[in-house]
């Protein structure tokens, strides 16, 4: 059904040769299904069932709405249904729209995105630019009908630059399926960090594809907070294209109701003396389902690699579930790789200990859960992000934020 809609949509659209190729590739292969290894536990069937339109309609966006979703950063880059609404003026930063831009891909959804996304943006950070404050990217989404939205951003961090971004999607409209592709080109000796705040409403289904190319001596950090939204699939790929790269991934997932979150991460260690560090923690209430798949590839020449991965999960209900899978492929012999995943419940002994000290069951469970998450929170270095995380965590655990 959606495929028909896509075919109809492209008839009236001028596509470049790259876009045509991508479109054909997508039409030949279609949306991923559970027959694909990478989508084994993640079915798009229900998500794709709706009758989405691909055309956007306009809506009014005012300061009050922006303030409601903003964490209060000085620099704001605001999008309305994928189109720039307002941009910060920062010396050394250029933001421009392009129509045709080839980016790396990790699923057929990236091909589709390349073929039909109308608003592709390139954000360039000059060489040696030291961004004083993070840039807060807010995507406001609102459409008259159920909506299939493509977002497409290319980020270039010039060598020696220091860049922090915060990204948040705010759907204030009908059912929306977001297919977002972001490619970051992190040049030599630069630092790139993005925090993804996934606090969507129940009408939002998201597929987030983030691909990061790293050059020599660079560091890239991605923090992913998944708190709300009925369907979230994150594809996060790091490519270490030279020596001495560091890739850090941190994730906090706390979901309830019947929501679904899937984290698929991939680190490609291609060169020697590199590091990757991955820590994902998940808390699952009610009828939620989670998936974690962490793939680490160490290629034959990638000696002296340190790769750490952990995925720890707490299940709060008998009907919640998590499928977790570390996937290590190591073809070099002088490397250090470790991985671990756990699935458990709140420790009964700890709970009794705290209750016998006067903690209500709710407070005890909340603080034990927060203690479980703190290792990831301690890795965050932006005050506003820590504050956001604590606010959302307290809300999910129904405890006062002051206790955290």
């Amino acid at each position, binding site marked *: 059904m959606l495929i028909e809609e896509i075919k109809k949509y492209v008839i009236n659209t001028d596509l470049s040769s790259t876009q045509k190729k991508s479109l054909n590739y997508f039409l030949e292969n279609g949306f991923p299904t559970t027959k694909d290894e990478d989508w084994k536990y993640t079915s798009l069937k229900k998500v794709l069932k709706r009758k989405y339109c691909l055309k956007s309609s306009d809506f009014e966006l005012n300061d009050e709405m922006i303030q409601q979703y903003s964490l209060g950063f000085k620099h704001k880059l605001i999008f309305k249904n994928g189109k720039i609404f307002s941009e910060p003026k920062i010396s050394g930063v250029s933001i421009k729209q392009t129509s045709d831009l080839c980016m790396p891909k990790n699923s057929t959804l990236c091909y589709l995105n390349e073929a039909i996304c109308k608003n592709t943006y390139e954000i360039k950070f000059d060489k040696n630019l030291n961004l004083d404050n993070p840039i807060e990217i807010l995507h406001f989404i609102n459409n008259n009908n159920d909506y299939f939205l493509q977002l497409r951003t290319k980020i270039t961090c010039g060598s020696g630059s220091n860049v922090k971004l915060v990204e948040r999607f705010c759907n204030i409209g009908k059912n929306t399926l977001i297919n977002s592709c972001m490619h970051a080109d992190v040049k030599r000796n630069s630092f790139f960090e993005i925090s993804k705040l996934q606090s969507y409403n129940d009408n939002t289904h998201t597929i987030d594809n983030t691909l990061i190319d790293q050059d020599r001596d660079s560091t890239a950090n991605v923090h992913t907070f998944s708190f709300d939204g009925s369907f979230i699939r994150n594809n996060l790929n790091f490519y270490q294209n030279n020596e001495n790269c560091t890739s850090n991934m941190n994730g906090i997932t706390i979901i309830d109701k019947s929501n679904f979150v899937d984290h698929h991460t991939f680190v490609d260690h291609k060169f020697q003396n590199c590091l990757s560090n991955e820590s994902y923690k998940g808390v699952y209430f009610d009828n939620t389902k989670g998936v974690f798949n962490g793939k680490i590839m160490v290629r034959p020449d990638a000696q002296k690699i340190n790769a750490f991965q952990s995925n720890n999960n707490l299940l709060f209900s008998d009907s919640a579930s998590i499928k977790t899978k570390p996937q290590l492929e190591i073809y070099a012999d002088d490397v250090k790789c470790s991985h671990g995943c756990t699935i458990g419940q709140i420790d009964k002994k700890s709970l009794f200990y705290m209750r016998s000290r*006067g*903690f209500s*069951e709710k407070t005890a469970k909340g603080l034990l859960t*927060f203690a479980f998450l703190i290792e990831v929170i301690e890795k965050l270095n932006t005050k506003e992000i820590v504050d956001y995380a604590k606010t959302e965590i307290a809300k999910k655990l129904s405890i006062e934020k002051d206790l955290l």
Partner: protein
Amino acid sequence: MLEIINLKAQIEDKTILNGVNLKVNKGEVHAIMGPNGSGKSTLSSVIAGNEDYEVSSGSITYEGDDLLEMAPEERSHRGVFLSFQYPVEIPGLSVSNFIKTAINEKRKAFGQENISAKELLQLFKEKCELLNIDKEYLSRSLNEGFSGGEKKRNEIFQMAMMEPKLSILDETDSGLDIDALKIVANGVNSLKSSSNSIILITHYQRLLNYIVPDFVHILKDGKIVMSGDKSLAHKLEKEGYSFLN
């Protein structure tokens, strides 16, 4: 303050307490001694409200109310404190935040305001001095990486901070070297008053040299088989539990 009448309790299908009777008045110190497996720790767990144990008959009255009807946190709010034989480790939760929250949960239960930062700091300072504790320790994760002795001292520190009416010290002396034992005993003695009571659960008479009990009870096969004054503990130390036979 506390009256236990014909208390029977079991875990799964195994009966552990088989008719315990005990009366503790305000200001008294009671020691409960007994061989391994006699039910000492079960008794303390039942008083604190551990739901792993099922009370099959009998009653516990605390300040005139049915203690068994109360949730563990309610017992704590009412002034019951159990110093655990095996305190749990909670990585990621600091000692200071743990104790602060414990104090505030109690205050909340009585509709009182949270403790002020100044008041809390003063209390921490005072009690750290009492138990010879370095203040740095307050920012450590609760019991994580603590030695056996440090864990026990931490329990007594919590007791000092929470000022309970009825304290049950479950084998607080085990794992303590002689210096630490003196510090802990000294702390407990200074918390003793005419309005609160203490139940000491111990294997050995050693602790009783430092915290002198008003009554000594011997628990065997889930029953108190003998009661007396502190001389009973000395007799036990000399002759062992075999004299009971």
